[in-house]
């Protein structure tokens, strides 16, 4: 794996290039969330209709495979890439993801890390985790984040582990919301022979206001030439906070939850960049009120979710059809949405909470949302390269605040 920073923004954000597996991925980048290695609803043949190489970066949790398939079988199959038929893709292993395996810090102890999963509470020991990584062979993997000192002090384990897995190791940095603990952990992990860093312990209910100081404190200490990944920051403002603090890779289940909750985004990314958000508002005269695709106003709407969007869903289907699918609870709605939501949600929610489309069982949304969320990251990268990131971020956040206020007042 190779990482180079290509451009800087004033505040500390950076645009870079991550070369891993057979992919060259520009950062800041999004890791697509998966369940057992595949997206929740987008089947592998449809996955290829998403933009590449952006959509080739996949997150997974080894704990997804705690039941149903043995490590021996996974090894026999040749590891994840073979098992999933996704040979060109990059897999990043993270022990935790908040849909299936929630870290349970109370129960974690020196023996291992504890997770709540559908199979019950699992206590994963470092050695077990290493066995999982060895048989799955991801391109990148984050170390098990528990009581860091216990793990970090095992220099021998670390070295032997690097040899057996071949994947790039990302040292996990935890420490909760205490800045001092975080700094201490970051210092120790920074000295380790790791390829990158994975900031854990975010998105667990802490307030967003705590992020900048925590993130800044951590990234200050970390070497600049190694990529930083974070789990649990999904909202657009959170992503922007992370980018500003110098984070390169983002993994969150936000898209998955949004798809399940039935959200779809329609904010045109091109116009955000060109006109800025204020202009956008007045140009279209939108008032930011909620668009609910289940609502009867969409029953006969033969336009796509978003005019000009190149995703599969928008190229092939209408709001009216998706409205119908949602009303009759058909799986196809979620498939079409997942390809759409994730690429879009952050920007739209931040910008126009009213543009979030609330629907249940929104299968078709799947493909549209991912497409848009990936688009959001592209816009961020270009802003950094163009030196306009700080401005972009400020506009974005302010407009969202105005909207929330407006929506609250008109409610």
């Amino acid at each position, binding site marked *: 794996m190779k990482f180079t920073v290509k451009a800087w923004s004033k505040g500390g954000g950076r645009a870079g290039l991550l070369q891993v597996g057979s992919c060259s991925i520009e950062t800041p980048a999004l890791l697509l969330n998966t369940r057992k290695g595949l997206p929740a609803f987008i089947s592998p043949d449809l996955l290829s209709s998403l933009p590449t190489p952006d959509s080739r970066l996949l997150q997974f949790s080894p704990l997804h495979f705690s039941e149903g398939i043995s490590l021996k079988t996974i090894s026999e199959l040749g590891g994840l890439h073979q098992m999933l038929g996704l040979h060109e893709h990059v897999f990043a292993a993270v022990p935790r993801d908040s849909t299936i395996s929630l870290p349970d810090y109370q129960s974690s102890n020196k023996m291992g890390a504890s997770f709540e999963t559908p199979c019950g509470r699992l206590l994963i020991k470092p050695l077990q985790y290493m066995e999982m990584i060895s048989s799955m062979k991801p391109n990148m993997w984050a170390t098990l984040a528990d009581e860091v000192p216990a793990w970090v002090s095992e220099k021998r384990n670390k070295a032997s582990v690097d040899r057996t897995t071949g994947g790039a190791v990302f040292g996990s940095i935890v420490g909760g919301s205490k800045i001092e603990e975080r700094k201490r952990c970051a210092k120790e992990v920074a000295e380790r022979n790791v390829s990158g860093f994975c900031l854990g312990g975010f998105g667990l209910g802490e307030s967003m206001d705590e992020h900048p100081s925590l993130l800044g404190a951590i990234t200050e200490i970390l070497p600049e030439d190694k990529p930083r990944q974070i789990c649990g920051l999904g909202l657009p403002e959170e992503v922007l906070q992370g980018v500003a603090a110098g984070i390169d890779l983002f993994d969150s289940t936000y898209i998955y939850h949004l798809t399940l909750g039935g959200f779809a985004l329609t904010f045109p990314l091109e116009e955000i960049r060109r006109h800025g958000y204020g202009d956008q508002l007045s140009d279209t005269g939108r008032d930011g009120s909620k668009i609910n695709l289940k609502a009867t106003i969409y029953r006969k709407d033969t336009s796509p979710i978003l005019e000009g969007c190149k995703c599969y869903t928008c190229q092939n289907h209408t709001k009216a059809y998706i409205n119908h699918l949602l009303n*009759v609870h*058909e799986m196809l709605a979620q498939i079409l949405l997942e390809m759409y939501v994730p690429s879009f949600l952050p920007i739209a929610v931040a910008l126009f909470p009213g543009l979030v489309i609330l629907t249940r069982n929104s299968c078709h949304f799947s493909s549209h949302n991912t497409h848009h969320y990936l688009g959001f990251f592209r816009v961020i990268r270009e802003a950094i390269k163009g030196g306009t990131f700080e401005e972009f971020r400020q506009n974005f956040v302010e407009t969202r605040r105005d909207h929330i206020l407006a929506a609250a007042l008109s409610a």
Partner: protein
Amino acid sequence: MLGIESVTAETSAPLTNPKPPPPKFNLRLAAAAAGAKVQAAAGVKILGRFNRARAAQLTLPHFVCQTPLFMPVGTQGTIKGLTTSQLEEIGCQIILGNTYHLALRPTSELIDELGGLHNFMNWPRALLTDSGGFQMVSLLHLADITEKGVTFQSPVDGKPMLLTPEESIQIQNRIGADIIMALDDVVKTTITGPRIEEAMYRTLRWIDRCIAGNCPVTHTWKLDDTYLLVKDICVKGLVERDLPGYAIGGLAGGEDKDSFWRVVAQCTAALPEDKPRYVMGVGYPLDIVVCSALGADMYDCVYPTRTARFGTALIPEGVLKLKHQAMANDTRPIDPTCECMVCKNYSRAYIHCLVTKDAMGSQLLSYHNLFYMMKLSRDLHSSIVDGRFPHSRMEMSHNGFAMLWRKKNKTNLGTSNSEAGYCKIDTIRGVKESDVITSVNGVSIFNEPEACAVLGKDRRVNWNEGFEIGSS
């Protein structure tokens, strides 16, 4: 909503002909009317035959189809878990939509306004809709059939409503399918007695109403029942009306296999050669092979997609239950001979860990199962066209997960276990090639005088005597 008419009103008159024909059964008059008013059917062009089996080309407004073919059921305007592009990729030619469900949501008027179901779902190939009668009778409380039509309680507000044959045609025309079905008097296959006869004659009268009403019918079909004597009259009556195509229905409801075959054989023998024959509700691969051997062309069933959602895959040997614990370590694909995306990329072990827990499991299995059914259709078509008899691979799967052939008892088997209704061929001894009607996917159907027989293990069986299944 469906046929909005209260039961107390008179039957609404068709649009152009104010007087519906008198409910008297008059074949000759009806036949003349039929000839004049029904649009010329697209018809079938037979491309190849083997004994009674036919491979044909069926030309429809949206697509030129090759038969025999299987039609997946897209009840509410979607095949569960698959996009229209995936359906095209696997070779799906016609999809079935359920009139009852679509008329409820989003309503046939809305579909019409948005340009028809093809536009609504963005499906460029062919569509078929049923009349809505069967679903109403099976899904609704207090649905009843009178001379006017099917009376039922509105699922929305409980008001009494009526679906007439004319209204059913109008709803289907709004939906805009390539093939539509005439409303029939739906009778449970287990019913006996004069009700059958009543149903048969009423169905014919209803067909006449459809025809006489000059509804712009693209294809009209009839439904049938399982009672042979009455059926002869019905078949004759319908053939005389020179309808664009014929459906054989009422067979998917629990009758035993012996009756099933007999009915299909008798119907196909009596139906005209140049019209398509559609056997409704048939989806087990073996049933499709048998019916094709007997001269049927089209099939539909929810079975392949429904069974996928329960974790069951269709394979040449029968079925594979991916939920089973032993699948957890099986690194083979579901079917090593299958060319689909699922079998080329995934192992049984991985699918096992997905099924029933992740939506992706259902999606992948639905994809595979429909791929299997499309391939079955293509293989049937080409093997008949080529005049090939691929002598059956002697497949005896003993891995414990294919459905084992069970000894048939003489009582009704029910349709939940079709594999138990047929024999597998282990060896063919002393049988001449000319005896073979067709041999596809491991099943050979042999021609016996006056009947079809399926060979059991070293046993020749005449279906008039019933048959035993060889144990595996």
